[in-house]
Each structure stands twice: as C-alpha cells, then as structure tokens.
C-alpha cells in the first residue's frame, strides 16, 4: 500500500499536540512534568517544516521528521522518537506491506534500545513500540488488533517498576502510574490506525 504520509503526519501531530496536557500530567507523577511540552514543541516544529519535509521523497521525508524531532524536542524523548522516525525513513520501502511496516518498526525498536540502553519491560515507550512491532511482523495483525494492543500495552506499564528513564529514580514509587512515553507511543499508533482506516 502507498502510505498517505502527509495525512499520517498531520494526524499524529494534531493528536500529540492536543494531548500535551495529559502527557505532561503523566510526567508530573513520575517524571519532570515536561513530556507533553517536549512532544508539542517537536511536532509543532515538524508542522512548521512541512513544506521542506514533503519536498523530499518519502524515506527522506521521514528522516527529516526524525531529525527535526532530534533538534527540537530535547530530553529523552527527542533522541528516541527522532531515532524512531529516522530508522523508519531508512527501512521502509516505497509501498510497504504490513510485514514491511513490522520489520521497519522492529528495526526502529532495535535502534531505540541501543540509543537508550533500555529493554522491553523497563516501563518506557518500548513497552508499546516493541509489542506492536512484533505483532505487525507476525503477519496476523489487523488495524483493530494493533489499536487494541497499543492501548493494552500502554496500560500494562502502570503496574511496572521503572528501570530506565527518570521514573527509575523513584524506585517503587514509580509503580501505579502509566509511563508518559508509552502513552505518547499509543497515541501515535492509534492515530496511524485511524488514518489507515479512513477515520480523520
């Protein structure tokens, strides 16, 4: 399928920007109260750069989105989401199958693990991105099942004790709160599902 890149990016940006307060509130509980502010700044910059970004071929456009996030977000989420988009740009073929999507996302997850020295189960965005990548790669994914898995996986970070990220400084006190990065990943994946399903 040909990905409607521009619509995807607009929807992801809009959803993240309008969820900024929620993400910051989650980060207040176990972090430093800026995840929503960071993500909003990043996607506002992506929107401001759109003309330049979409002048490029799709792969390069995705890399440019990643680079914009790296240069505008800062914090932990900047390099991580930046790496995610840059890797997707490198790995996605022109007209990807679902399995291609899975492979590219899996490659991104591998890159993220290396960048952040983290693993699945550490109570981070990886706990949403990792399961979704694996599910896509499995070949049995539907839009419905991906959406459900993203939501479930974000929720599953609530009882986890953080091993990585700022929440790890809290030790046991990190238990009982959803990881803000897991929630922003869920929001992005849900946005992609909605666009692919034809919902605005």
């Amino acid at each position, binding site marked *: 399928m040909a990905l409607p890149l521009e619509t995807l990016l607009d929807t992801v940006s809009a959803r993240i920007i309008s969820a900024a307060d929620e993400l910051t509130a989650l980060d*207040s509980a*176990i972090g*430093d109260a*800026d995840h929503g502010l960071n993500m909003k700044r990043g996607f506002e910059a992506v929107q401001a750069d759109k003309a330049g970004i979409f002048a490029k071929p799709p792969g390069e456009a995705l890399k440019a989105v990643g680079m914009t996030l790296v240069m505008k977000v800062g914090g932990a989420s*900047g390099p991580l989401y930046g790496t995610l988009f840059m890797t997707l740009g490198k790995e996605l073929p022109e007209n990807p199958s679902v399995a291609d999507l899975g492979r590219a996302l899996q490659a991104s997850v591998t890159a993220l693990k290396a960048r952040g020295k983290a693993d699945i189960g550490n109570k981070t965005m990886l706990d949403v991105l990792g399961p979704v990548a694996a599910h896509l790669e499995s070949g049995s994914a539907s839009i419905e099942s991906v959406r459900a898995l993203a939501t479930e996986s974000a929720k599953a970070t609530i009882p986890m004790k953080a091993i990585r990220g700022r929440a790890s400084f809290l030790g046991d006190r990190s238990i009982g709160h959803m990881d803000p990065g897991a929630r922003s990943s869920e929001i992005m994946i849900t946005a992609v599902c909605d666009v692919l399903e034809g919902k605005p």
Partner: protein
Amino acid sequence: MKKLINDVSNVLTESLDGFVAAHGDIITLGAEHKFVQRRVLKPGKVALLSGGGSGHEPLHAGFVGHGMLDAACPGQVFTSPTPDQMIAAAEAVDTGAGVLFIVKNYEGDVMNFDMAREMAGRDIETVITDDDVAVENSLYTTGRRGVAGTLVVEKVVGAAAEQGADLRALKQLGDRVNRATRSMGVALTSCTVPAAGKPTFDMGPTEMEMGVGIHGEPGRRRVALRSADEIAEEMVAAIAGDLKAKGNALFFVNGFGGTPAMELYLMYNAAAAQLAKHGITPVRSLVGSYVTSLDMAGCSITVTMLDDEITKGWDAPVHTPALRWGL
C-alpha cells in the same frame, strides 16, 4: 503561578538575554540562544562544554569563564538541550585541543550529548556525573542522577584545563572527582515549571520529600517534616555510608532556589556536626543556591573527598558570573 515573567514561551530567551547583558564582560551569547560562551578563549586549551535543562541557574551558564567552562548549552526548562546546540557550541569554542563534555547522568542529557558527539566530527570526551546517593545504583538501571556535585567537577577540571592538561587527562580527572563526590537533597515544596503553570507535585504542609532530585521530580520517600538536625543526620549518613572515606573534604550546602541563606547556613551547621561523627572534616566550604530547581524550597548537601590535586583545582582562580575568586 506567581513568577516575574512575561509570556511563558519567552522565559528562557528573555532570562538569557538579561544574563548575558549583566555579565557581558565575561560571556557572549551564541546565535539563536543555542549556547553561552566565554568571551575570550584560550587557544590550545581543551574546551570544556556543559549544559542541561534550564531551571538550575546559575548552573551551567553561570560557570562559564576563566577557570571553569568554555561554553554551556541551556535546554528548555528541565529538558536536555538538543544536539545542534552542543555542535554549534563545540564549533565555537574548540581551539584545536578537543572538547570535554560534562554531562549530568540523565538519559535525556546523555543521549543528546551522545548524538552531538557522533555528529560533531571532532575529538570529544565525556565525563558523566552521578553524585546523587538518593538513587539506588545498579548495573541494570539508569543509575544515579548528576546533581550539585557537577559544580565541583566543573571547577576542578576547569582549573586543570586552564593549566594545560590534555583531553584524556581531563576526562580521567573528571571521572575521579565525580567518584570522590556524593550528594543528597531534600525538598520542602515543589517547584513550578513556567510552561506547566502549577506545582509539579502537591505536598502537604507537614510533609517533605527526602532524596529529591533537581527537576521537581518526587524523591524516594515522602516523609513527615523533620528538624534540620534530623534531616542532616539522614543525609550525612547516606553520603558517608556510600563514600566509605574519612578525612578532609569540600562541603557544599546548596539551595534549590526558594531557600533563604539563613536556612542554608543553619543546615551547614547541623550537617557539619554529623560529618564530624563520620570522621569527615570540611576544610573547604561553599554555601549558596548554585544548582537549583526553579523556585523549590529545600537543599542538597555535597561532599567531595579532597586530595592535593583536587584541593589545588578547587582553590585555583575562577572568574565566572556565579563563582569567582582569586581574580
């Protein structure tokens, strides 16, 4: 939220503009507010570059100048700066002897400085500070936070750089000062991030956060408000227990931004008595709000065990906006 500000989206740039105007004899501002740099560079000297989220003023920009940093990159409030900032700053202050990054151990900071190092294409080493004993250390976790002890590392390494030490030697010295340094903090109130507009966490009138960091993040434990003596006892016990060293030390009581000097000196008094019990003797002292958390009330205490080299580095002349002696 009660703050002396205009539009929340301009807090950083307006504050930086004031900072550079007030200290124009020592520092200048890089393009697009990406960094603050020493006005007069010393050719052949290794360039020291630090940075991190804003909200910790005077750290880091307040320590740019003779005998300390060559450049500092201010991120958004409590958010690591982005790699383009460090790349531009390194470009501006590297006079050929290489660049030493001094980075507080937060994943955001570490990752952004790492990316900058990969992309900058020059000789760069990194010292990571992780002095906060409030955080349990383990190979499998993020590890400890870098907090007020970062000032000590910047000062001592800055002095050695001024004396002509090379990049590898400075990296080693920085790691060594970091290993000789421990800190712990306590917060009586939360801070308020300007863009968030309300306190990061709620705290009751008789509660405090023990083992708090410098980002308004909750500490390890919410406990009942205690006396300065009891707080000092717990903090010093944690530090001394982890240091496992006796002897001469630099003792640094640091305010978090909303703490009056009267209380900092009272804490100094309380904690010095505890240090004595553990066989640690403060022979150098620093008291003030140097590594802050916006308007948070509370303080941290930092102990650095001294040897001749570290003492010499601490005593060496320094001329920066926030720390100055001998010049």
